[in-house]
């Protein structure tokens, strides 16, 4: 069984008026089956309101299924006694780095999670060091988080999750507020965790180019999984993605437009190198 598995997962938000009377329901996740293998890098795309964050919040038991089940590392997330184990195994990183940082000094912030878990002081320091090194922020350990750039803050939040020794990290639009350099740094750090440490990654994003190195891409639409495949399979379907309010990386779009104008190029080009090589070959 995969490290993250959902079966017939349905989640309904109940909307209430000021008096607390039920006004209606929103089915945010609608019969989703997901099976993520340990060490996989998964990306989730989808239009605004398609259910990505709602799905993600099930992975660390912030939300419980209305119907169906979710298992993390074999544990059913709806069973109260597993909740801390699950949160330790599956860490979450959100969009806004400012809301996630609590410590006055970087290393203190990163040590906060393991300290709460009752890890011994000696081990806390070891974990802080290894986590900060993994995201390339060790030299900033004595800095005040407020004085860091957005990309640096976000890498500190990731280190904070890593220090809990999770098997899996869920990142919900971690680069939305970052400048291009910060975006690159965060994605590079996430890829390294996946490739070097073997940590399972679930990345939610609206930046298509951030997903080209994922093992599998899922596309959500109105609470359902509408597409699933490798980045190349997914981004070969430009028109279908546009119907789902998405896009393709700019290099893929350029290749697609050139193809429509009669240039002999394959679909699903994902990198600048691939396009340049293919064009050089077609000359």
């Amino acid at each position, binding site marked *: 069984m995969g490290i993250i598995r959902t079966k017939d997962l349905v989640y309904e938000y109940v909307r209430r008026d000021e008096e607390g009377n039920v006004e209606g329901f929103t089915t945010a996740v609608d019969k989703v089956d997901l099976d993520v293998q340990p060490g996989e890098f998964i990306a989730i795309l989808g239009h605004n309101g398609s259910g990505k964050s709602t799905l993600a919040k099930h992975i660390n038991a912030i939300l419980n299924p209305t119907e169906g089940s979710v298992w993390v590392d074999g544990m059913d997330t709806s069973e109260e006694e597993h909740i801390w184990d699950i949160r330790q195994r599956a860490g979450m990183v959100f969009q806004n780095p400012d809301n996630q940082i609590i410590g006055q000094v970087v290393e203190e912030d990163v040590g906060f999670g393991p300290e709460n878990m009752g890890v011994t002081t000696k081990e806390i320091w070891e974990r802080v060091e290894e986590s900060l090194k993994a995201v390339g922020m060790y030299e900033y350990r004595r800095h005040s988080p407020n004085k860091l750039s957005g990309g640096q803050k976000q890498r500190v939040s990731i280190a904070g999750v890593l220090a809990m020794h999770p098997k899996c990290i869920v990142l919900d639009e971690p680069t939305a507020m970052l400048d291009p350099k910060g975006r690159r740094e965060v994605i590079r750090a996430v890829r390294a965790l996946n490739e070097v440490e073997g940590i399972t990654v679930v990345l939610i994003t609206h930046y298509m180019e951030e997903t080209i190195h994922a093992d599998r891409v899922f596309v959500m639409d109105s609470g359902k999984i509408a597409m699933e495949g490798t980045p190349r399979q997914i981004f070969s379907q430009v028109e279908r993605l546009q119907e789902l309010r998405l896009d393709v990386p700019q290099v893929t*779009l*350029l290749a697609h437009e050139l193809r429509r104008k009669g240039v002999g190029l394959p679909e699903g080009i994902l990198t600048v190198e691939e396009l340049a090589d293919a*064009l050089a070959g077609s000359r």
Partner: protein
Amino acid sequence: MSIILDHVNYIYGEDGPLAVKALDDVCLQIPDGQFVGIIGHTGSGKSTLVQHMNGLLKATGGHIYFNGEDIYDRDFPMKKLRSRVGLVFQYPEHQLFEVDVFSDVCFGPKNLGMDKKEAELKAFDALRKVGMPMELYYQSPFELSGGQKRRAAIAGVLAMAPEILILDEPTAGLDPKGREEILRQIKELQVQTGMTILLVSHSMEDVAEYVDRIVVMNKGRVMYDGAPKEVFAHYRELEEVGLAAPQVTYILHALKDRGFDVDVNATTTGEAVETVLHALGRIPEAFRP
């Protein structure tokens, strides 16, 4: 409405031990009806800068003029300024507070003294412009997805029909289609109503596509100020300050390195298609620029 910033400085916590100089001698002239993009690394002072333009922050040094009037003059109508300069905040949560989305969007125009009917018409129009699904109009703004909140916040400001529209990273968190729809709407407002627009963005592709002029901020100072092509020609220097060129610029450089005769100054997908076709000899000689 034109804006002039004359040697503006801003220091957070000026008298305290943790003073931060967020704006350092900023001079800018923004003529009526221009669409200006503001880019810069995180913490470069973009949000601080735009909050000066509706009087939310007061410069610790220098002057700001609207249509030639000094906004720090004692008899300058600051309240009126806020109604003429609409600011969409970087974090939409900072400006949503009513019980439902529709009331939230009505709040601004009502506050400007419009009657209920008129305010509601403006609100409907704005919500339609930002592509808010109808079934969410009477839902609490706090029960929306990230991108839906963003749309509600933009609609609230559009409904006030400001003369200057300032958007602080309005497309962060929007899906790609939403990003395009909203930027197109804003461009159309500029063209049709002559609204002055300031767009703070981390998307180099978006600013390349839509704005007339780019201001680059670096550590509180203006580093470059010019047409998109001029600014992106400095892409190596931009990389050094946390920025980048649009992706197509890199593609074109890679092609040039492989011996294609492409114009590396193209900054949009449309322009890149043209120059690549040209380099491949696909466009008849007669049509070449």
